[in-house]
């Protein structure tokens, strides 16, 4: 599967995307470790524990649908990753 980075995340990640081979479908939660360990600059996000805390810092979309951490990801999937807008 592919994590595709949007906006400033591309700069933080140092690339436009990250490919993570999946032998079997997996929950998004289980892929966060790969995201964090393979991209040093995202480690702070990986350390977040609760779903809400994570999603305050990162959001994941597939086909314009926002994903929850329990959603199943397949090897053919492309997951769009964004820094969610906040601010006043």
């Amino acid at each position, binding site marked *: 599967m592919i994590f595709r980075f*949007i906006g400033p995340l591309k700069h933080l990640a140092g690339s436009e995307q990250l490919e993570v081979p999946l032998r079997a479908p997996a929950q998004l939660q289980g892929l966060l470790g790969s995201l964090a360990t393979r991209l040093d600059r995202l480690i702070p996000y990986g350390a977040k524990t609760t779903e809400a805390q994570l999603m305050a810092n990162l959001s994941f979309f597939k086909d314009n649908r*926002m994903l929850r951490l329990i959603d199943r990801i397949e090897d053919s999937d492309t997951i769009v990753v964004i820094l969610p807008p906040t601010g*006043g």
Partner: protein
Amino acid sequence: MFGYHGKMLWIDLTQRSVAVRPLSDADLRKYIGGVGLAARVLHDNTGPDTDPLGPDNVLTAFTGPFTGTRVPSASRHHIMALSPLTGILGESNVGGSWAVHFKNTGFDGIAITGRADRPVYIWIGDEGAEIRDAQPIWGKDTYDSAAWLKSRTIDKASVAVIGPAGERGVRYASISHIGTIVRSAGRTGMGAVMGSKNLKAMVAYGTQPAPLADPDALKADVKQVIPHIRKVTEAFGKFGTSGGVDNYERIGNFPIQNWRGSRWEGAGKISGATMHDTVLSGRTACLTCPIACGRHVKITEGPYAPLDCEGPEYETMGTMGGECLVDDLEAICKANDLCNRYGLDTMSTGSTIAFAMEAFEKGILTTEDTDGIELTWGNAEALVTLTRKIAFREGIGELMGEGSQRMAEKLGNNAVEFVVAVKGLEPSAHDPRRFWSQALSYATAARGACHNASWGHAYELALSMEEIGIPEPYESYKADGMAEFVAKMQNYQCVNDALISCRFAQVGKAVTATNLVNWLNQITGWGMDIDEFMAVGERIFNLKRLYNTRLGISRKDDVLPPRFMTLNRKDPDLTNQLPPLGRLLGDYYEYRNWSEDGVPSNRKLSELGLDRLYDSTPAGV
């Protein structure tokens, strides 16, 4: 007529007269409401000879067709007047409940001119409006005043009220809106305009919603969208607008040390997540809003206890926290409460204090000037003390109450080199070196350095809107096409503020332009398409520019302060990001069909149906 009452209140405080004026179908469709109708009223009734703090200034507020309906996140109104802070168009868009309660009295908007000979408040109910005595609460803070006003009207009423800052003409005094929750119309000194008119408050409560063209279709449509909004804004609601402080510091969007810093470890101490885990006692929501981004905080121990009040939001964290290097969350909560209580804009307050801290560091201000306060970076106690002094114009607060730009000009010693303001307005907490769309938007927005004029940072970060020609998030630092992107976003946010819909409904693409157009048609029965919808936004943006043009604004004023144009931040990841403003402005004027000096062309005005305003444009356009 659906979605409107088709009339507005016109109140002359000098004459103590209350009149009702009709709003035509044609004007409603042309300007929709909110910022559009407010801009038209301001344009037609004030100008270069108007004193912002004189009786001739007109303070106007408008709701929109979404107000009081089932449309989510739409309980807002738009306030406008000639600004005492900037001397040009002033405006503030605010949520809460006042808009709904006001519109349910049977009016779409209100305009107030003149000056009362003694303190008054305006009561607006189902039977119309009355001017009443407010002498007993002149000098009282906003909370005590609201309690008194509700006791003399209706407890369920919403109160738009000024505090001591507005009474004393602090140029960035706000209007606190107190119903079941508190929201402030902070920017550009609208509270000072109220104070100059001896107008303490506007209290509203009505029971007459405007009729809708197709309420069943609206109900069904909105019902489908609400779960989506709840889902994609879950984190936004849980951690509030300051949920992204850490992210913004990391990518270089968060303001640090009067905009000269690169990195600040204190950001994590004042983030939305930290607030959630420490002082947060609950969430608050404007009427009909499923997001509930508002914070309620409670502090029971320490120097700022007891505190049980509305909590600070992102822009306050940026200006009072990052800009001043104050990482004491409880102190920021206290200063934020003082701003709500005394009626001050948290953003201009924080920015002006940050500017003063740098002036102190440079020796331009000393303890002799500051009433003995050591105005050092990160001094949380000074932040709280100065907030109060500004509100009451005590000591150094007299000078600081003028705003950072005037303060810099009065201090001399090249202080204008490090003051950070555009057209006199201190910026929002979004760095235009990180998001060039905000550089261009700060330079061209009608009220000065306003992030909401385009909300471009959100569309560089993550958002897109295919219907208006933005199919992907805009590529940061790409100058080609930036002008068109910013102009489209400014037009879109203008029509958004005419409806009125909250920006935050755009988070996660929860509410799209298609949703807005559909809802507008279900409410009004108009059959408007997306092109006409966007043309309304463009018309409003040009009308606001036209107003400022008449006041002398041109390209010479569409500039950014030296700190944004020349100061490269030291962190390697944040260097070489200075915006190429000259090039962007040229592209922008061309795209907008404005002259090289930034004046809307007659052809453009004609295209937008603003022909009869020709006479008020400068010669040679």
